[in-house]
Each structure stands twice: as C-alpha cells, then as structure tokens.
C-alpha cells in the first residue's frame, strides 16, 4: 500500500481525482449558475477532441507555441551566456530587462497587431517575448557561476574565447538553462492562451471565448480541463527531456511556476 502510493504519477493522479470530487461536492452544495458539475464538463471532452475544426485550432496554437519557444531559446540563450561572462554586457542589458520584466507581454498584443496584423507573426512574436526573459535570466545566472578554474585551465591549454564559451560555459550552464526553459515552456502556453484571448481569431483561446459568449458553460470548463492537461503534459515531457540531457547534474526539484 505505502509503496503503491509512491509510484510515479500516482499522487498527482489522486490529486486530480480529489480536485474533481471537491468540484462536484461544491456544485451540489451551492448550485451556482455558471458552474456545471464536473461530469457535464468531462462529457463534452470527446465531442471537442473529435471535432476536426477544434483539433485544427489546437494544432495551430501548438505550432505557434513551438515556433515562438524555439526562436526564443535560440535568441535568449546566447545573450544570457554572454551576459554571464562579461560584466559590461550584463550591466548594459540588466536595466533594459528590469524595465521589461513587469510588463505583461500579452499586453503588447494590441500594439503588435497594429504593426504585424492579427495573423501568425504577431502571436509568435508575443510568445517569443514571453519566453525570452526567463531563459535569459537563468542562462545569465548559470553562466555567472561557472567554475573559473575550468576556464583558466582551458585558456592555458589554448582554447580560444569562442571555444571556451561553447565547450565549457554552455555545458556547465546547461542544468540552469533547462530550468529557465521549463519556466519558459509554461510561459509559452500561458502567453499563447492569453494572446488568443485578446486577439480572437483561431486557436484554443478562440474556442474558449466563443463558448463563453454563447453561454455554453460546459464547453468552457471542458476547455479549461484541456488547457490544464496540455500544461501538465508539456511540463512532464520537458522534464523527461531535461533528465535525459542533464542526467549528470542534481535535479533541482523545482516545480515550474508560470505567469504571463
């Protein structure tokens, strides 16, 4: 019994069931209009997941999210590493990031839409902005704490600055970069949903709000469940990749926390 409880995945599963039970009890006890019992919402799931249009919307959203995420990592990681190794570069970029940090990236959506239109480009750009900050921050923090002796040894053996960056700083920082990427992944999902809520055209956010406008509350809750599962699956998959890439480092035991 006690060993079964520690099977991987079982406690979160129990937590999910617990949440559904609490939700059910809540609806029975208070009967709030606009809060259907969980079974009603779950019953909508097969309908949404077999509807080709809904699936196309979800796929389009995921594609945007993936493109934005990959571009952001490719752009932010070098900047973060460079900031970590050069005091001058760090001093140059820090104030800029400090100013950008409290601005909700999805709030730039209306302005970016003016320039790039309501299409793919503006949504990808917003996701890109949202993911970049945590990746820069964690690469910066990681690169700052690389063991100096390793760099000196490499320099003594004749490895040039670019080689040191690529062969020492990058691998040594990889665990910390992965933490940043994990936060970034959660942020990508959040920014994606939010940007689609603000500029409704296609995607998950669009299905969501169309259902809300038409007062199909069961569909609204079904979408919340789908987005929640999506977040959990992304996080789980990334954790598997991370463990495979940096299995040599101690796992930091952090749970991804997202914000927009």
């Amino acid at each position: 019994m006690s060993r079964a409880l520690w099977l991987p995945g079982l406690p979160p599963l129990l937590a999910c069931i617990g949440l559904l039970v609490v939700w059910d009890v809540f609806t029975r006890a208070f009967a709030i209009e606009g809060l259907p019992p969980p079974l009603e919402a779950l019953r909508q799931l097969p309908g949404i997941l077999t509807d080709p249009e809904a699936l196309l919307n979800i796929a389009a959203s995921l594609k945007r999210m993936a493109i934005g995420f990959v571009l952001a990592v490719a752009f932010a990681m070098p900047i973060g590493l460079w900031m970590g190794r050069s005091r001058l570069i760090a001093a140059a970029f820090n104030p800029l990031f400090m100013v950008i940090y409290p601005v909700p990236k999805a709030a730039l959506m209306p302005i970016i839409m003016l320039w790039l239109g309501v299409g793919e480009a503006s949504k990808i750009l917003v996701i890109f902005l949202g993911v970049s900050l945590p990746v820069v921050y964690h690469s910066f923090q990681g690169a700052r704490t690389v063991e100096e002796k390793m760099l000196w040894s490499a320099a003594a053996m004749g490895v040039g600055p670019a080689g040191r960056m690529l062969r020492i700083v990058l691998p040594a920082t990889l665990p910390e970069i992965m933490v940043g990427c994990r936060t970034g992944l959660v942020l990508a999902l959040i920014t994606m949903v939010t940007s689609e809520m603000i500029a409704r055209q296609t995607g998950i956010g669009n299905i969501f709000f169309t259902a809300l406008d038409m007062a199909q509350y069961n569909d609204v809750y079904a979408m919340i469940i789908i987005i929640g599962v999506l977040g959990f699956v992304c996080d789980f998959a990334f954790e598997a990749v991370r463990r495979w890439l940096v299995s040599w480092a101690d796992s930091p035991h952090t749970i991804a926390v997202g914000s927009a």
Partner: protein
Amino acid sequence: MNAIALRRTVTEALAGVVPVLCILVPWYILSAGHFVPPALLPSPVDVFVRFVRLLGDPAFLHNVGVTLFRLFAGFGIAVVLGVAIGILAVGNRVVGAVVKPLVRVLAPLPKIALYPALVLTLGFDHSSKVALVVADALFPILLATYQGAASVDPKLVWSARAAGTSPTRCLFTVVLMAALPSILTGARIGLVISCIVVFLAEMIMSTDGLGQMLVKAGRTFQTVDMFVPIIAISVLGLALNGLFNLLSARLLIGFSTRS
C-alpha cells in the same frame, strides 16, 4: 582602488543606458522623420508628455487606484495563504502529503484559463480579478516557503524544543523566521506576477483599471493612449519592486547575505 571602483560603477551605469537608447533613438527617428504614420507608432515624446499630463487626471488616477487595489488585495491573500500552507506542509506530514501532489498538478496550469470560470462564478467585479491574482501569485510564494522551511537547520528546531517550546510554536517562531529569506524571494516573484496578471485580467474583461484603458484605446486606435498604460504598469512594477527590496532589506537585518 576607490577611484577604480568608482570608474567601474560609472561605466556600468553608462552601459545600462545604451540598449535603452538603442530602442528610444530609432523609435524617435522613425516617428519624427515621418517614416511611419503616427497612427502606428507615435513619437516617444508624445507618449511621455501624455503620460505626465495624465498623472494629474482624476479618471486616470482612479484607474490606477483600482488596479493597485486589486493587485494588493490579491497579493496580500496570496502571501498569507502561501506562507501558511507552505509552513504547515513542512510541519505536518499529512498536510504535506495532500499539498505536494496538488501543487504538482496545479502549478504548471495556466491560471489565466481559469479566468472565464472565475468571472462566471464570482461575477464581473473586483472579486474575479483578485481571485485570479491569488491563483497566480500563490504558487511561487508557497513553493519558496516550502523549500525555505524544509531546509531550515534542524539544530535550530532542536534547541528551541529543548528549551521547552511546543512544536506548533516552534513552527511559527523558529521555522518561519529562518525561512524568511526564501519566503521574501518567492514573494518578490509573486509581486511581479500579480502586476502582470491584474493587467491581463483587466484587458480580457473589465470595466475599469489600467488594462481596460489599453483595450479601450486599442478599439478606437488612440495609439498614444495605448502606450501610456503599458508605461504605467512598467513604472508601477519597478516602483513596487524597489519598495519591496527596501522592505526585505529591513526585514533581513541580521541574516547573512547569501544571495
């Protein structure tokens, strides 16, 4: 030595201005040289003037006040709940066993997806926005509290227990205090998250607040007015962050400055 340190500080401060100028100067040239119609990109001078002028406008101040109220209400509740649950999860094994998997499921969930549900159940007014801020700010605070409290030196607790403190009192007088640096780090992340979330909630569905100002300006293509709320939330975030740093420096007197 001192002169070198001074020169270094000055150089670094100057270096910090460069990227900001790299954005502001092309922005100014593009708009002042009429390369871009002002309806798409207003001049930074216009935006700044408008921002300063609005600071005296009661309607604008009302919106800022509403946003700040929601922000602080949500952040306050999140701090109380997050610290309490985090400490209890460390102090009590049953609470810990319940809380840990729940956090694992709920933390990566995009909380903004709950917003329509919150609007449906709690209504259109303050409470749905405050609830969303709580949902988003809670987890960084809870996790930081949990991690801080779990890594408190057991010798501190043993000494207090040996001196006759009850286990419950120990939790609040020893563990809570020893976990303070970690809790404050979590709370700072939570504060910035609150800033962001309150703005987004107001953008998606609201009748007042800074976020709604932005959406309203966007609908009527008042580009200058679209930039003002964004600058306002950035300034607000910076100011709150600064205040929080002052407060935590004051609270952490006597702690070794680890990071």
